[in-house]
């Protein structure tokens, strides 16, 4: 589908242009989510997109579905209510690294533990962009932020490992450089029944890039290209070669009963009494 048709079908054209900075990778993620929705042929009237607070969470405003822009960190908890109350809806959650890994961290692990049928896409730009560049739980050690003027003391989460351990049944990581792979990873996440989680490493040239002298938006995309290692290639590399790299691709698939279906079985079982 040509871009114009894609936009006409799935976006609120009148709300464009978006609010994101020049060079920001978030638009690439939004485009990839829309292409994945189109690939999975979701019913636009039966799809709900939920977000929290932050740069990432402005994405649903541009999307022509039922869209819910909630409170900081709480998108998954709101989405859980939507999905349980109306299981026929496809519910997609768009969130950021600060939103879902810091203030929303508890909701993230519990949504994963329940294996509830939500597709979560994390816009990971390693920084709080909306508030102008504070460190997040995904800011690497020793990197700079307005609240880490001497280098970040914290060490970051590996979010994919976290949600895998918590019980997510589809876990993937992509980048805004590898767009075809990203569309594919999100489409598979949408297709998957259960809690699916896609971390997207994206660039914030305005705050993270500038603070850490990473150059232009294009330089940052090249950085992603050079530091992302596909999962198959990573399997063949010794750990020292992966030290400053991160792995992309489908990282985990599990089989477990899905939460809403399990609850429905209880309802159906009680009907017989």
């Amino acid at each position, binding site marked *: 589908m040509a871009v114009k048709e894609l936009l006409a079908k799935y976006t609120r054209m009148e709300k464009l242009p978006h609010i994101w900075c020049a060079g920001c990778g978030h638009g690439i993620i939004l485009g990839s989510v829309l292409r994945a929705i189109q690939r999975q042929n979701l019913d636009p009237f039966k799809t709900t997109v939920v977000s929290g607070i932050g740069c990432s969470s402005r994405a649903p405003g541009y999307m022509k579905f039922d869209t819910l822009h*909630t*409170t900081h960190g709480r998108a998954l908890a709101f989405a859980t209510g939507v999905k349980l109350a109306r299981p026929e809806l496809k519910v997609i959650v768009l969130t950021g690294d600060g939103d879902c890994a810091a203030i929303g961290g508890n909701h993230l692990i519990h949504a994963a533990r329940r294996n509830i049928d939500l597709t979560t896409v994390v816009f990971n730009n390693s920084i709080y962009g909306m508030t102008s560049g504070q460190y997040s739980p995904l800011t690497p050690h020793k990197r700079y932020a307005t609240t880490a003027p001497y280098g970040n003391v914290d060490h970051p989460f590996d979010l994919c490992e976290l949600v895998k351990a918590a019980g997510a049944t589809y876990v993937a990581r992509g980048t805004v450089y590898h767009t075809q792979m990203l569309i594919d990873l999100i489409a598979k996440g949408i297709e998957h029944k259960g809690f699916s989680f896609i971390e997207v490493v994206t660039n914030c040239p305005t705050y993270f890039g500038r603070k850490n002298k990473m150059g232009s938006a294009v330089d940052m995309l090249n950085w992603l290209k050079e530091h992302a290692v596909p999962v198959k290639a990573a399997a063949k590399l010794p750990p020292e070669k992966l030290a400053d790299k991160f792995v992309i691709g489908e990282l985990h698939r599990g089989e477990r009963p899905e939460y809403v279906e399990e609850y429905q079985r209880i309802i159906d079982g009680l009907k017989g009494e």
Partner: protein
Amino acid sequence: MGENDRQAVLMSGNEACVEGALLAGIRFFAGYPITPSTEIAEGLAKRLPRYGGKFIQMEDEIASMAAVVGASLAGAKAMTATSGPGFSLKQENIGFAAMAEVPCVVVNVQRFGPSTGLPTSPAQGDIMQARWGTHGDHPVIALMPASVQECLTLTVEAFNLAEEYRTPVILLMDEVVGHMREGILLPRKEEIVLKERKKPTVPPEEYLPYKADPDGIPPMANFGDGYRYHVTGLVHDETGFPRGRGIDGDRLVRRLVNKVKDNFVPMVEEYLTEDAEIAVVACGSVARSAKRAVDLGREQGIKVGLVRPISIWPFPEKVIRDLAEKVKAFVVPEMNLGQVVLEVERCACGKAGVYGLNRIDAELITPDEILTKIQEVK
């Protein structure tokens, strides 16, 4: 259809709240265990799936409030129940529900605070938190039951008001009414009048989700009904999309506050106030002691009456203002250090004396204490 048709049962206020919620058509409950409200969650965990509804114990209080708002947007009548510390945590998303105009019911079975306080002991310390707990100006409807029967009827009323006004409604119980067991009459299903949220009458392409009718309340489409609209906690215009000017915030928040202020008639019980020279103003469980004290006072020839705000918010201002013209004094017993008394003082405008009677030792105020106060001020 007389009273004889109704089933008489013995139950606690928390159990009656469960019955009321089911009669009101609840289809979603999200909660988190907390004393002294837990029986409400336990009751609905057991009962809701039998009605095709959903119960979920969330990871925390914040999440349960969020899930309730999400479920309501998807069309389910939704409720959560908590107590003091949990009520504090829920404030964030109560504010969201007020701003985004999402109907829902929040039960707070008040306990002794602040902080963990005395978890199993009664108090009425959350009167002002129910009014001002979330940040910013916002509409509030909060109801205070004084009996087990009323825990049932006011739960139904809370759902009706939430649907009618598109706003969170707080059922402000206290530990005494929550755990007290009384015989009540279960209303028959056909006796219950239910209200449902206004639905849009225009096709989706013409739907403006936050364009209010003349009553200040916009019709509400449920997610999945084909209207595809945007909901946000940011200041928004009639389209539902963010608008960042101060004037947009002014317009929106005034409408939110006024839709309740202009339409809601405060609920109040008056007892022997016609000729009263002294009026006791009491809510919740304390109103039971107050009624007894009024009877005892009358036996002694004291012209005393009772005003019981059933809706503590909006506060029954007019009743107090009118009484202030006639009575000599108000006595305001409450299980806190003086919250309702501030409203009574405000409404009395200095036209009558206002005397608080306060206990915060986790004991219910007795009729004798109230009577003694009445005798002092007469």
